[in-house]
């Protein structure tokens, strides 16, 4: 049971609550380190560009890109879920997760050389399996990048719209702005009508972002995964990715909240075990879903014993990439499952953070076993693997590239934290308005309002 003192959003939130950005000491070792890693990422990206068109060279970059898609880009969806469920636990976390929309924009740049290295759908009269069914409209490069761009724009718009009431300042300031800036700030003066429009548009943009996210996941995982490994045909694969992305997103959010609580008191004062209790439940559920989706895929191939399917599963599960698969299984399922079923672990942010780190490591290895296997496959035009491929190991540049991408994500996130007030002010104030702690006879209770 969560005790009132452990509740993040306690009565400390008294109006007027003024949201602020986070002040970061640019000379601290952590910030300098993140900056260096980001610079490393940029350098490695440029170095890798010299391998343009060599598909196998882009195998590990593809894995880390899909890892970013499955954690960073999925994070803003948690804000949507929290708003839909009107969950109080999510109030201090919503802005924190929406800000991930900005580092998520790295996807666009990362995908250019990766998609550019893909072979055509048809070669010497033979067509490889694909989701575009011979459509010649620039698939997969243009179609995938277009879909990714639309998704990223929706994520950015969601982040911006949610932040406008906190950024705009008093109406007099907005009225004094030049026209383009006023437009950017949605001419925000906080009228009732504007609030209604803002909420409605946020709802629709979030729903649109979710649908685009699912669509992008489906096409990217197929174009960079199944379509390149002969004999691999799995309808559940996109859904597996969506589910594991939600798992990765929750893990990322838990880690971020933990770090903010530790190092950013202005945010940390609102983050407590209430957030852990809710996020822990989701993480446990998604952990079970990992097994369910994996098993639904594996069992059918094992049972039907079609040679082409069996060879594909032997490649990315049972033989060639068995080590990354085992790390993924332990990280995404076994360890989180046996730990998160216990309340004392699930409901404490620090302990949940430790499990979340394990989950993210598992997710990374999962993406490696899936996408390195496909991107490095020799002949995507055959109907099945004649023999199992050898594992494709990363070289130093691949490893530095992956570390650099993580650095770039962290650097952009740190930067945006200094620009947009966190946690969001208007939602926090509104939440406090509808929440009260009181006594009911001898018991301490929370009264939670649910406005229509």
């Amino acid at each position, binding site marked *: *049971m*969560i*005790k*009132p003192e452990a*509740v993040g959003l306690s009565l400390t939130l008294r109006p007027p609550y003024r949201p602020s950005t986070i002040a970061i000491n640019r000379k601290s070792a952590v910030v300098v380190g993140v900056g260096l890693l980001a610079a490393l990422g940029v350098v490695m990206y440029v170095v890798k560009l010299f391998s343009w068109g060599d598909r196998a060279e882009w195998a590990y970059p593809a894995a880390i890109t899909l890892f970013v898609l499955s954690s960073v880009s999925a994070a803003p969806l948690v804000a949507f879920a929290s708003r839909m*469920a009107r969950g109080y636990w999510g109030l201090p976390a919503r802005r924190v997760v929406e800000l991930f929309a900005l580092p998520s924009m790295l996807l666009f740049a990362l995908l250019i050389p990766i998609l550019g290295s893909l072979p055509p759908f048809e070669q010497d009269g033979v*067509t490889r*399996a*694909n*989701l575009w*069914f011979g459509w010649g409209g620039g698939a997969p490069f243009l179609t995938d990048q277009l879909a990714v761009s639309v998704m990223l724009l929706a994520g950015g718009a969601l982040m911006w719209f949610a932040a406008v009431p906190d950024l705009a300042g008093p109406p007099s300031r907005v009225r004094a702005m030049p026209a383009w800036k006023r437009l950017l700030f949605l001419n925000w003066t906080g009228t009732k009508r504007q609030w209604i429009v803002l909420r409605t548009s946020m709802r629709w943009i979030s729903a649109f972002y979710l649908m685009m996210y*699912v669509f992008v996941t*489906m096409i990217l995982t*197929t174009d960079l995964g*199944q379509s390149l490994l002969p004999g691999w*045909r*799995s*309808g*559940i*694969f*996109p*859904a597996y990715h969506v589910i594991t992305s939600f798992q990765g997103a929750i893990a990322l959010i838990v880690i971020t909240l933990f770090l903010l609580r530790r190092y950013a008191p202005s945010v940390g004062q609102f983050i407590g075990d209430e957030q852990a209790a809710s996020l822990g*439940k989701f993480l446990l559920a998604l952990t*079970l879903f990992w097994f*369910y*989706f994996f098993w*639904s*895929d594996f*069992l*059918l*191939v094992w*049972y*039907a014993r*079609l040679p082409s399917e069996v060879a594909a599963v032997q490649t990315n599960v049972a033989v060639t990439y068995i080590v990354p698969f085992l790390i993924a299984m332990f990280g995404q399922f076994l360890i989180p499952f046996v730990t998160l079923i216990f309340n004392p672990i699930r409901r404490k942010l620090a302990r949940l953070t430790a499990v979340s780190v394990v989950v993210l490591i598992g997710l990374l290895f999962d993406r490696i076993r899936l996408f390195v296997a496909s991107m490095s496959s020799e002949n995507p035009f055959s109907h099945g693997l004649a023999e199992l491929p050898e594992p494709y190991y990363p070289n130093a540049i691949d490893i530095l590239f992956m570390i650099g991408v993580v650095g770039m994500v962290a650097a952009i996130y740190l930067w945006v934290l200094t620009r947009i007030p966190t946690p969001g002010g208007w939602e926090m104030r509104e939440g406090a*308005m*509808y*929440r*009260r*702690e009181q006594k*009911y006879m001898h*018991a*301490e*209770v*929370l*009264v*939670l*309002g*649910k*406005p*229509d």
Partner: protein
Amino acid sequence: MQEPVTVDRETANRELLDFVFAWPKWFFATTGLLGAVITLGLIIFLLLMIFGLQLFGYAHPVYWGFPVVNFVFWIGVSHAGIMVSAILRLAQAEWRRPVTRAAEVLTIFSLMTAMTFPIIHSGRPWRTLYWEFPYDWMRGIWPNPRSPLVWDPAAIFTYLTSTVMFVYIALLPDLALARDRVKNPIGKAVYGVLSLGFRGTTRQWRIQAIAGILLSALILPIFVSVHSIVSWDFAVTIIPGWHNTVFAPYFVIGAVHSGVSAVVTVMIVMRYAFGLKNFITKDHIDSLARLLIIVATVWLFFFMLDFMFGLYGTEPAEVDTWQRRLMEPPWTAIAIIFIITGYIIPVGLWLFRRVRRNFFLMFVTTVLVNIGMWLERYMIVIPGLERKSNLTFQYGDYLPSAAEFGIIAAQLALVIAGFLVFSKLLPIMPAADIKEGQILRDEIKVGRARVPATMREA
């Protein structure tokens, strides 16, 4: 505007138990009619025993017909209870209170009905034991647990047992209430035994609350496994149109779509038939409809995955099956009706608040969903089998016979009758749960507005 349930304790006790203690005339008429239809089903079943499966419209190579379609359909409907009850309990959704019991009871009776179909389908029910249970130990004959046909009964047995236990534990306080209110001494004795002496001590209430959460958390994974295993009856084979890895979640979410829609249908009927207007409000139907929009859209996504990844490999047999499903009569018509009634009309209408809060329209749209979902199962089961393979020397069209339609009607009547009889004997709404909701109800004043609120233990 939200409409919270607001009745005093006395009215709640009276109205919630009214149907248990009263004998309205329509009850006899309805049970009589249902009894007649069930009798018809029994006669058909008897004839089936005598004349065999030739009474059905099977024609080589199709030997999985209506019984299998109905089996999948009723298993799907049975997912209503646990989906609505367990998930909403875990999410502490306040509006769940009047909905849970009916949903759980629907689960029990639809599951029991579903279980009869494999028995009918086997043609020689007395031999079902031979395949499923190790009855012949002396000769060393054991069932084959590697077969999905053994997984199925294991899953259904677990699900049925768990659901019955879940309902029973949640029923204890209401059985005690019935014990205290009933005048008839026999009734008092029966309810007394069933309620196990439940008095409503603090400890008992505390355990009830934890049990609700714990059993919900345990039953949810079972609920997911049941329809997944049903889907694997098909998907582990290599029959075109069936062998797709997405089948398990696709079946589960389809079941939820069908089941929650059935719950809405039942709730609306109960509201008028049992005089529960104070308890089933527009808010409940609205909330369920919102849930259904999400469920239906996820279901559509999985349907699209099934479709796209059916064609993805461009394997001729798969492509042929999909072509038959979508492009050849009568399947084209069935596909169109299924997608229109299963998604386009209902979800299109549910986007409008006015429709979500209209009992008549919600009744119609949820019935449409189940027509669509039945056709979906029909479309999954039959065309995959209708394909000529290299070893098909004899080929005929499967046309469902009158006997099969008769059995469908009888099974529908069986579910309704089961539900009705349960409602007659036991409270179909969780009285204690509803009254707890009244206690926990509060409001928060913001300016001049009063916002409905709920108390939670801190």
